[in-house]
């Protein structure tokens, strides 16, 4: 699933960064890589951006609707 379909607040692993080279480079520069654990922190109204926090570096970025669609994630199952 992509970041738009992901549940709010759950821990997610980035599986793939789709999208063009410039978007990928920007995401890498802002510290979002394949394999990172992230968390969805918020969503704006009207197909607006989402807020995603990288759990390792504790940095938060706002990703536009189109960009968020290209970040593929999977849920992380933590031992209870």
């Amino acid at each position: 699933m992509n970041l738009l379909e992901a549940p709010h607040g759950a821990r997610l692993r980035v599986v793939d960064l789709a999208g063009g080279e410039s978007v990928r480079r920007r995401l890498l520069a802002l510290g979002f890589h394949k394999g990172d654990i992230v968390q969805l922190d918020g969503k704006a109204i009207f197909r607006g951006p989402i807020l995603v926090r990288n759990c390792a570096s504790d940095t938060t970025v706002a990703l536009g609707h189109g960009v968020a669609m290209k970040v593929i994630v999977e849920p992380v199952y933590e031992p209870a």
Partner: protein
Amino acid sequence: MSRPEVPTVVLIGQPNGGKSTLFNSIAGPKAETSNFPGTSVKHTHSRVNIEGRLLDVVDLPGTYSLCPDDPTEQVVLTHLFAEKPDLVVNVVDSSTMSRGLELTLELVELGYPTVVALNMVDLAERKGIELDAVKAERLLGVPVVLTIAAHGRGVRELLDRVFEVIDKGQQPRPPSYSDDVEDMIAEVARLMPPEFPVVSNTRFTAIKLIETAGHACGRILGQVEPGLKEAVDRVRRTIEGRRGVPAYEVISAERHHQAMKLFEESSRILHGRRLTWDKKVDAVLMHSFFGYVILAAVLLAFFFIIFMVGSPLETLLLSPFIKLRAVLAASLGDGLLYHLAEGLIQGIGGGIAIVLPYFLPLLFLMSALEDVGYLARAGFLLDAFMHRIGLHGKSVSPFILGFGCNVPAVVSTRMLESHHDRVLTSILIPFIPCSARTTIVLALVAFYLGPLWAMGFYAVNIAVVALVGWAVSRFMKEPSPGLILEIPSLKAPRLNSIARKTWLQIHSFIKLAWPILIGGSIMLSLLTFFKADRIVNDILAPLVVQGLGLPHDLGVTLVFGFLRKELSLIMMLQALGVDYQNLMTVITREQIVVFTVFISFFIPCLSTFVILWKEIGRKWALVSTGLSIGVALVLSWAVRLVL
């Protein structure tokens, strides 16, 4: 190693890492500002004397990496590669250290003498992160100092280490990539011809060639010669073939993991002490309902404060100029000398008393919002709306800046990564009513027709921006890459950093706009003296009288609206031969509205036009101007029809 006379130290770090705070802490408030050659994105430098030893300290804009995409960040690279500083102080936000270290590792690869300042350790502590500087230092091979720049903590030790490295030199040990990647780097380094413009060392240059071909950084590294380019392309294909992802991503991912490992080995996470209050505040600030309520309140308060401060200040500052003019009129008569002096006074007076009272508080509040971290949040909230006009949330802050003055607003579009966004935002900025136009709206519409009319004017104006944006984006098909915007953690506002930001902007405005203001005013006075204004009026009569239904005498004011928008107001009174209070005796309410609408839109002022030309090129500057003229004509006629 020969020691330079006065060593240069540059501060480099990712945005929001407290770099400028550290700069202030070292350099104090006496920092000089300077233009960077070839561009006007500011960097600040200061010569400081630390117990008898001189140091040139340079503060560069924040950058996430040494392969940046946006022009502001590329300034950093150009400076770093071309000026070859004697030492780099890498400022890292220790509360987000594992990401900041990625840039640190690039700097260690670059191999200039480096000292790392792990800044804002208090914030890291509150997040439950305990840092071990000694361990980090051993792993990186460069000095690491813990600092809290805002309180001056650790700054003394930082400077001691800086001098130590300057005196003794340094051998940083960059960590290695996987063997297969290292082999490829070595191959490119081996094939590099002796005359190749190597940056610092062949390994760094080889890494950057592999990472960046076809990218801005590659251009800065110089024209790659055909033989080497072929080798670099081959190496890149080999890496991609083996790993299944582009070479730049392989290198970036390995660096990312090196950074995370470094962070893990030099820090301890104390659980249960996580900072939570700012997360709660953020949840409200970016809430899908309350977020917008707060945004509206912030913007309303923003403009309310500006006008509360601006209008008494304007009256106060304007009165000496009016008196001076009267004194000169009495003593110099009506000769050429008087007209020259009058033009000069009008120009200087306009710059000081009309623009600054509104512009200064606006820039100050704007810097405050930026410093606290609210602008990024406004960008988040407004992103969806900006998409309707083909842009995204990052264009919000240039637009807000445009309410003060369009000129710095256009310059600030450099922080947008894509050319498309930069051009579209720059085309739209001239439609934002700047403080000079607001002065006219307040003085004519609000004063004669009432404040509701002025608010209506603003509403229509914003609708026009949206409509023009929507229309233009239909023709600029290149899709915007979408919003990728860091949301920095909220910070308490600090007066000295806000004051410094405000000063930097005011300084560049004064340097750029005042000569044009003063020159324009003098020219206007000379035209009046030689009675050339009548010729201008006659030429413009078909437009002014038949087209807009305005008095014949107002033609010349339109021309001078191009030089300075607020000049049109003074000129209007001058041309009609009445004083402000008696304006309604010679002109109707309808004419006031038409005049204000037309003057506001019909053309960007000269300074804006010049900066548009410089920033986005002649073609787009002319497109923007053409759009302005078109919109002004349509709107004015619409107003005539309605009223």
